[in-house]
């Protein structure tokens, strides 16, 4: 099969183009010799199946970052029919240097000048045909986001791919260093016309406010608060709706259907599988909303501004502004955030950042907190309680960095682009929400099903005794763990849920549903009756800080390539979680008793 590789500097719109070309049907592939996974998709181009591979964004071919090595390795070892290079049309003064380097590789190339819309708005004029003639390769202007020029880009790719012959890159070219600079200067001045004051008026004006020396940071925190408030306010009614539907479906159809089956099977299917999985499903609206909002913030360019605002503070913790951005990404899911640390070259910096990311309150933990908060606290207090957990999340991360910074030193320079502010289109937002939810369901569903089935078994076996009583397997296990959990106010049944939360936080609420044999709509009442607010908050603190999930541990191991580091990254949060819950619980108990 023919193979087309997509390449460009970071943030040029490669993913946007990839999604448009493939209809977002990408899968993550493993490539021989590469430690990272690359996105690829099979698509029909000019009546032929073609494999399209999305390579990581790189600044140059001679660099030493992991991404640059990945690209080099890939191009040297995998034959390619066509290299599609994407460049930002508003930044050709620097982006063409990568094109000149790539040309040396001796591969057939198409150059797509993306963000034509922004170039036009800024009054930047590119003579793309002349540029193509000088470079000796086809050049197309387009906008991957809005679609202008996309048909021509696709046609050009189809046309070139038709009679392409696969080749690997000429390895000598990677070492060949450049008198490219002089050529670049000439090329740019001949073909790119930038008005004297390229107008980025909106971005400048927004920056003046959002990067304000005094108000910048408070504004950022306010923006984040509004996002979480919005997710919560819009998400909970939707969640209740889904829970109600699932309940009605169970009472109306599933339960009568199972009426003839024996009692154990009924209990297994209804209280185990249906309640457990249903409870998790009812969180889907919150997950989708969360990723929608995070996607908007991520796409807007505000995240790199937050790096600017936070860098002075992060530097004092031995981190940098990018660590803060990764931490924020971790609020969606820790796993991609951990993988995002690949852009860091200093091992100390990278490990320290990887150590703090798991404290980020990810969407899976958010479910648990939304659930418990809604059940136990008043509607007025609930958002504040949630916000305090976000504050705790930062506190745990910063404390950890302060404690470990000496052992993981770094002196990595920080150089980061501040892209203009952009707002995603409705299409981009929906696509993203859909992709993330699909990912969530795919990754979590196996764990969740397995988790709730196991919990059901532990809390119901032996079948003769009262479910979830001390005579069941779970009861015995919990009693055995009680000396550890009693001092932090977590009772036996809740500790079972925590045990399963180690696998994935998505399981916790499902497990509670199974443990209490309750449906989605009845569970909050039971939880409220069982837990005082002190116990509930102590429970949430523990859930927040201890190991997020097995996937996170697996990624920590894979990315750090160090068993020692992985052990520390598991043991330390567990210890911290216990200590924080202990201090909180005992203090709160003492204060309320007095």
């Amino acid at each position, binding site marked *: 099969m023919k193979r087309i590789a997509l390449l460009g500097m970071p943030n040029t719109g490669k993913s946007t183009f990839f999604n448009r070309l493939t209809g977002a049907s990408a899968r993550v592939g493993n490539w021989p010799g590469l430690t990272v996974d690359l996105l690829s998709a099979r698509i029909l181009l000019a009546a032929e199946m073609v494999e399209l591979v999305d390579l990581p964004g790189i600044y140059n071919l001679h660099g030493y970052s992991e991404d640059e090595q990945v690209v080099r390795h890939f191009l040297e070892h995998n034959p390619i029919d066509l290299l599609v290079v994407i460049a930002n049309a508003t*930044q050709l003064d620097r982006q063409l240097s990568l094109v000149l380097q790539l040309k040396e590789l001796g591969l057939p190339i198409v150059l797509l000048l993306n963000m034509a819309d922004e170039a036009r708005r800024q009054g930047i004029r590119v003579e793309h045909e002349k540029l193509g003639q000088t470079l000796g390769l086809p050049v197309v202007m387009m906008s991957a986001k809005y679609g202008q020029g996309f048909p021509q880009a696709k046609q050009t790719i189809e046309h070139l791919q038709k009679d392409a012959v696969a080749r690997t890159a000429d390895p000598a070219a990677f070492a060949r260093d450049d008198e490219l600079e002089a050529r670049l200067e000439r090329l740019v001045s001949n073909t790119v016309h930038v008005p004297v004051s390229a107008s980025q008026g909106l971005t400048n004006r927004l920056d003046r406010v959002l990067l304000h020396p005094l108000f910048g940071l408070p504004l950022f925190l306010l923006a984040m608060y509004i996002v979480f408030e919005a997710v919560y306010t819009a998400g909970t009614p939707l969640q209740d709706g889904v829970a109600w539907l699932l309940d009605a479906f169970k009472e109306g159809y599933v339960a009568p259907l199972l009426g003839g089956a024996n009692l154990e099977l009924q209990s297994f299917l209804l209280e185990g599988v249906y309640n457990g999985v249903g409870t998790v499903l009812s969180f889907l609206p919150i997950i989708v909303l969360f990723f929608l909002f995070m996607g908007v913030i991520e796409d807007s360019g505000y995240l790199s501004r937050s790096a600017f605002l936070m*860098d002075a*503070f992060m530097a004092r913790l031995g981190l940098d502004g990018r660590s803060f951005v990764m931490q924020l990404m971790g609020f969606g899911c820790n796993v991609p955030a951990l993988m995002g640390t690949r852009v860091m070259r200093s091992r100390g910096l990278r490990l320290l950042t990887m150590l703090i990311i798991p404290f980020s309150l990810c969407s899976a933990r958010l479910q648990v907190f939304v659930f418990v908060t809604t059940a136990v606290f008043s509607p007025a207090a609930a958002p504040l309680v949630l916000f305090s957990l976000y504050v705790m999340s930062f506190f745990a991360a910063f404390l950890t960095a302060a404690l470990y910074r000496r052992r993981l030193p770094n002196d990595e*320079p920080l150089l*980061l682009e501040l892209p203009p502010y952009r707002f995603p289109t409705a299409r981009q937002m929906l696509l993203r929400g859909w992709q993330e939810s699909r990912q969530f369901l795919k990754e979590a569903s196996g764990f969740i099903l397995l988790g709730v089935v196991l919990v059901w078994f532990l809390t119901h076996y032996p079948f003769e005794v009262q479910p979830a009583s001390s005579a069941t397997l779970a009861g015995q296990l919990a009693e055995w763990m009680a000396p550890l959990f009693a001092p932090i106010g977590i009772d036996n049944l809740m500790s079972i849920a925590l045990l399963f939360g180690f696998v994935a936080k998505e399981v916790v609420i499902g497990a509670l549903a199974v443990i209490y044999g309750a449906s989605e709509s009845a569970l909050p009442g039971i939880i409220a009756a069982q837990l005082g607010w002190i116990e509930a908050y102590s429970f949430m603190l523990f859930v927040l800080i201890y190991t997020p999930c097995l996937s996170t541990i697996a990624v920590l191991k894979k990315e750090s390539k160090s068993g020692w580091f992985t052990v520390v990254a598991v043991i330390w949060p567990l210890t911290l979680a216990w200590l924080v819950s202990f201090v909180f619980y005992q203090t709160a108990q003492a204060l309320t008793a007095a």
Partner: protein
Amino acid sequence: MTLEQLPTGQRALIAEVQGEDGLRARMLALGLRAGREVAVIRRANLGGPIQVRVGSTDLMMRRKEASLIQLTVIETLR
């Protein structure tokens, strides 16, 4: 004068980019080349990073790296 010392709102030309190879390559790729015009847009508080404009690209960099960039001609921005 270095980029670190360039007053906010003024422009200058880059004379030379110093530093180790990897860092220089990265700066080059971001447009920090001898002969290009640069300006410092703003400085973060507490010794934080600075925002620099080269061509149509805005960058943030720490003061330490900015001090590796030597400047020549200086004129006042309108």
